[in-house]
């Protein structure tokens, strides 16, 4: 299953290595850095869960279990806040 960010009412931009996000539904600004920024960039085009896990494995010195757990936690947060496309 391919995952991607919703397009409506969501604006984001990279500044330095961070991602600055504006959720237009409630005018909330968020900033992502580190692994969150890595995953967000991939989700902006679209990616599978496995591709996200691989990206963390390729970027950070972590084991598969940690990368998978971090990815799932991140996806759960995005889903909860309505950032993922249905």
């Amino acid at each position: 299953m391919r995952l991607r960010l919703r397009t409506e009412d969501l604006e984001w931009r990279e500044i330095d290595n961070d991602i600055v996000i504006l959720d237009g539904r409630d005018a909330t600004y968020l900033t992502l850095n580190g692994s969150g920024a890595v995953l967000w960039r991939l989700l902006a085009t679209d990616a599978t869960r496995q591709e996200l896990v691989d990206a963390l494995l390729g970027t950070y010195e972590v084991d598969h279990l940690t990368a998978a757990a971090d990815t799932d936690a991140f996806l759960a947060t995005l889903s909860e806040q309505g950032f993922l496309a249905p």
Partner: protein
Amino acid sequence: MTNGNGVWERVEEIVCATRNVEALRHHGVELVAARVWRERGYAVPDELLVDERVATLRALAIPLLLKRIRDSYDGTLILMKGPEAAARYPGRAMRPFLDLDFLVDDPAAAHRALLASGFVEVGEPARYEGAHHMRPLAWPDLPVAIELHREANRPNWLAPPDLDELLELTRPSATGVPGLSAPVPAAHAVLLAAHSWAHEPLRRLLDLIDVTVVLESADDRRLARELAFRWGMGRVWRTTIGVADGLLLRSASVPALRIWARHLTAVRERTVFETHLTRWAGPVWGLPYNCIRAVGGATRIFTDAARPRGDERWTDAMRRTRLAIADAPLPQSEHDLIKETRNGR
């Protein structure tokens, strides 16, 4: 940062000639400087990094706001300045702005429509009675104000251009928001010049960069000149574009650049003396030759400067004038600070 006619190469040269962040901010080119310095491997000061972040937060809100504004009002909406000019920069986040400026066919109706859609009024109501735009609006929690113009801003000694003609001189906005218009480049450039002079003639580098980059062709330049003269702003335009070309395109230097706009070349604030000179020179350089108000206006500026203001006594007015003369070589902001300190004692 490159483009065809060398404007940006010249801008790079100018912003690299100083490391004074306050001066860069004063001229509205701090974001350009941050980008150029980074590209050249120079350290970008923390304060400019903060400026970049703030500009990014503001820029993020623009597409959302424009779409909401467009969805809220059915009439004509013409976006000018800010993001419309920024679209002609190498990066849209390189041009700072605080608000969105619109020319609209029916400002009162547009204002009501936006309020009905959830926008809220901001700013003191009294400030905007009789102003060139309605009381500003904002979307709650988003850091950008929206100004719906009753007429084009210009120096108060010039008449506004005909709104109906301005509403005709449009094309789709460079922001890409469907249904949103922008002035054609020639009209936009003249509006930008007039707006700049409304604040202070030949105020800052940003204004000259805007005017230069929105013009896309020689035809635009011809039309801009024609429109400016038709709208009674011919000399404002000729002075502005002459200074912009002299500064940014290295064409022959014009007298205004040498006499009362040297702060542009040096990327610094005007001194107290230059500020006073500008108050006099603006109308003289900007009004049509046959307009007798030039003489009256310019003379009045000097006499008004020395005359008591409000409840001020003549002795205090004379003291203020003496201090202005003593501070003549200082930057205007330094003089203002000294005045505040003196008044606070």
